[in-house]
């Protein structure tokens, strides 16, 4: 078992007092942004990237490991106590979680969520340790055409298959690809869309784009609604999150089922944890109906909460594997992590294990350490974290705004970047206002340059023959799977539109 000895070396590197401190800082920050509605690990990593430039890469990534999982530990807290899931990965946990809280089981719900997140993350990270070398071997047979197919798969899966509206998803994809085009074209040295400004020769910084879309865009969005939407009421909890042995025994199968749903989805670019969490919730619901479980849907079933929570962290765990071994970001958060690697001059993918093996295994080890620390700081103190929800929202968003400006200015001390940040923030607000998904923009910005380079490389080799793009079993399989997924989601969209039209013909006619 080669991996085990490498992993033990990784633990050796990660278990220094200084690195433990970084994991702890990451875990605390991650949980905090997870608890606060509207913020997530993606934004936290983007905001912290510029600040961590002066750290050595291992320390920075160890901290990011804590943030990465931490965001998913905290995200269900707001959903359970306020019935307003702060992040979409927590929506499925909210259904039964909030019912439990309303019926006086808030502490039990918080504990179930924390343990579920721990189990899902633990199993998934273990899988990554054992299967990462296999993925790396798979990736070494990938040529330009295969990488291009992978990028196309990611683009269309995120913008069309899972998104609310195909047109809006593709619009987001187009915006992202356009942003990625700015700068000097690597292969030819041509300046593209820079308006002659030397500051733009390196392209628009990925930090400007992420911070603008995720942080400033959210601030604008909050500003547009804060005086209009009613505030949610919080269910008060006291004491520690606690759970007894009987509950653990009832929740354990659900935790494991949730993990089984979540783990495969980390490898598919389906945008993150939403699809597996809903699948897990749906399965628990069917099982509850078969068992005639009276709690489900009324007073709140512990299983209906346990499964989606485990699923979301399991997805995050294997997503890290796909990112490290293939260089493929399968969710917005993974895309930001990929950007973080690029900022440090590293390219995730098969070569990363060879060139920066020490860092990779230290990172994997710190994912385990991070999970343990997260369980320790979440299980006894879940109700303390809930106090974060009492921070006045104006201080919270004012702080985020100032931090966004600080982070972007710290990258290159450029005022032009700040103007760009404001413009992209307004674009992020526009997209939120009209329900245009943000994830395709991030994926396109990160994978766009790779897609372009590989496409041109493939066509240069084949001297313009498009056949090379579908010339290998791997590419054919990828495109076929994509075509089936697109067809299924197309049928879905049409079916739902039809049933909706049938049910409301009169209103439609009046309103049109």
């Amino acid at each position, binding site marked *: 078992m080669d991996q085990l000895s490498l992993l033990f070396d990784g633990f050796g590197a990660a278990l220094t007092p200084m690195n433990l401190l970084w994991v702890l800082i990451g875990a605390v920050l991650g949980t905090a942004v997870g608890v606060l509605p509207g913020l997530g690990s993606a934004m936290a990593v983007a905001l912290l990237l510029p600040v961590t430039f*002066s750290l050595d890469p291992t320390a920075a990534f160890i901290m990011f490991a804590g943030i990465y999982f931490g965001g998913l530990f905290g995200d269900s807290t707001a959903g359970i106590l306020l019935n*307003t*899931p702060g992040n*979409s990965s927590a*929506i*499925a946990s909210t259904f039964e979680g909030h019912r439990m809280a309303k019926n006086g089981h808030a502490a039990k719900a918080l504990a179930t969520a924390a343990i579920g997140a721990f189990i899902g993350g633990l199993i998934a990270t273990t899988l990554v340790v054992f299967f990462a070398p296999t993925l790396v071997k798979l990736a070494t047979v990938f040529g330009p055409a295969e990488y291009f197919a992978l990028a196309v798969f990611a683009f269309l899966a995120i913008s069309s298959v*899972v*998104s609310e*509206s195909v*047109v*809006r*998803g*593709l*619009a987001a*994809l187009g*915006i992202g690809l356009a942003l990625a*085009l700015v700068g000097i*074209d690597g*292969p*030819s040295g*041509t*300046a*593209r*869309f820079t308006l002659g400004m030397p500051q733009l020769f390196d392209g628009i910084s990925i930090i400007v784009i992420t911070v603008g879309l995720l942080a*400033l865009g959210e*601030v*604008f969005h909050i*500003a547009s609604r*804060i005086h*209009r939407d*009613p505030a949610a009421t919080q269910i008060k909890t006291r004491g520690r999150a606690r759970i007894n042995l009987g509950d653990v025994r009832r929740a354990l199968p659900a935790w494991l089922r949730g993990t089984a749903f979540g783990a495969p989805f980390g490898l598919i670019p389906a*945008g993150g944890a*939403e699809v597996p969490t*809903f*699948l897990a*919730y*749906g399965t628990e*619901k069917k099982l509850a109906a078969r068992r005639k479980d009276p709690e489900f849907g009324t007073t709140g079933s512990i299983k209906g909460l346990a499964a989606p929570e485990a699923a979301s962290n399991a997805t995050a765990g294997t997503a890290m594997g796909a990112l490290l071994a293939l260089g493929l970001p399968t969710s917005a958060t993974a895309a930001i992590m990929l950007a973080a690697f690029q900022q440090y001059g590293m390219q995730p993918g098969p070569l990363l294990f060879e060139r920066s093996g020490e860092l990779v295994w230290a990172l994997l080890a710190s994912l385990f350490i991070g999970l343990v620390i997260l369980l320790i700081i979440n299980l006894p103190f879940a109700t303390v974290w809930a106090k974060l929800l009492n921070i006045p*929202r*104006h*201080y919270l968003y*004012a*702080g985020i*705004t*100032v931090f966004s*400006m*600080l982070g972007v200015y710290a990258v290159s001390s450029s005022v032009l970047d*700040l103007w760009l940040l*404001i413009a992209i*923030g307004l674009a992020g*607000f526009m997209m939120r*206002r009209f*329900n245009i*998904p*943000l994830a395709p923009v991030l994926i396109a910005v990160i994978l766009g340059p790779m897609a372009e380079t590989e*496409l*041109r490389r493939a066509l*240069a080799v084949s001297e313009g023959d498009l056949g090379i793009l579908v010339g290998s079993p791997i590419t054919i399989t990828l495109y076929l799977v994509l075509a089936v997924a697109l067809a299924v989601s197309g049928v879905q969209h049409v079916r739902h539109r039809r049933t909706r039209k049938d049910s*409301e013909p009169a*209103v439609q006619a009046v309103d049109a």
Partner: protein
Amino acid sequence: MSITGSRPDAGRRQGTDNPPAAEGGFLRGRSELLVAVVLYALAVFLTVGTATMNVQGSATPGPRFFPVLVCILLYAVATALTISVLRNPSVPDTRKHPDHGNFSADMLRDLAGLPADRTQTAPAGSWRTYSDWRTIGLVLLGLVTFTAVLNLLGWILSAAFLFWIICYALGSRRPAFDAGVSLLFASAIQLAFNAGLGLNLPSGFLGGLL
């Protein structure tokens, strides 16, 4: 609840969240045309940039190849969006959108076996526009001012102003207390960054005095 909230036409059926002041008019329910305009503008910018590009090297496919593909995508999507908005105008629903259209609510509902819809009446409002443009304007003013005066006034004063105006815009009614918090926050960051991380934030004219 949340996932039903991402259905743009859900509010229309109940007819309760129509901004009362906005009766009739072509743009009613069609404000999303703004997005189409932005997409067309982006496409035209890319087209002009591609046409006037000073191409280096002679490799095929060259640096113009991919931008052309992106242009085609943008024109197609902008046109499709225009048609869709013209055919199905929709007023915004006022419910919570945790993920802003990233996921199809129909798909998630099918996966979870949730009932088709849960009706929820939206609170009736008396505002003219859906978005609160006064608050957005204040936030934008703060950001623009910050960027414009950063190098002149230095980090502490600019950042404190930005923090303060956003608190004010988002509804804080303790301006004097907020001013103190803002100055403390901005100074703490300056101190942490200059001393701790070695990043230099502009000190502005205060730097000359201190």
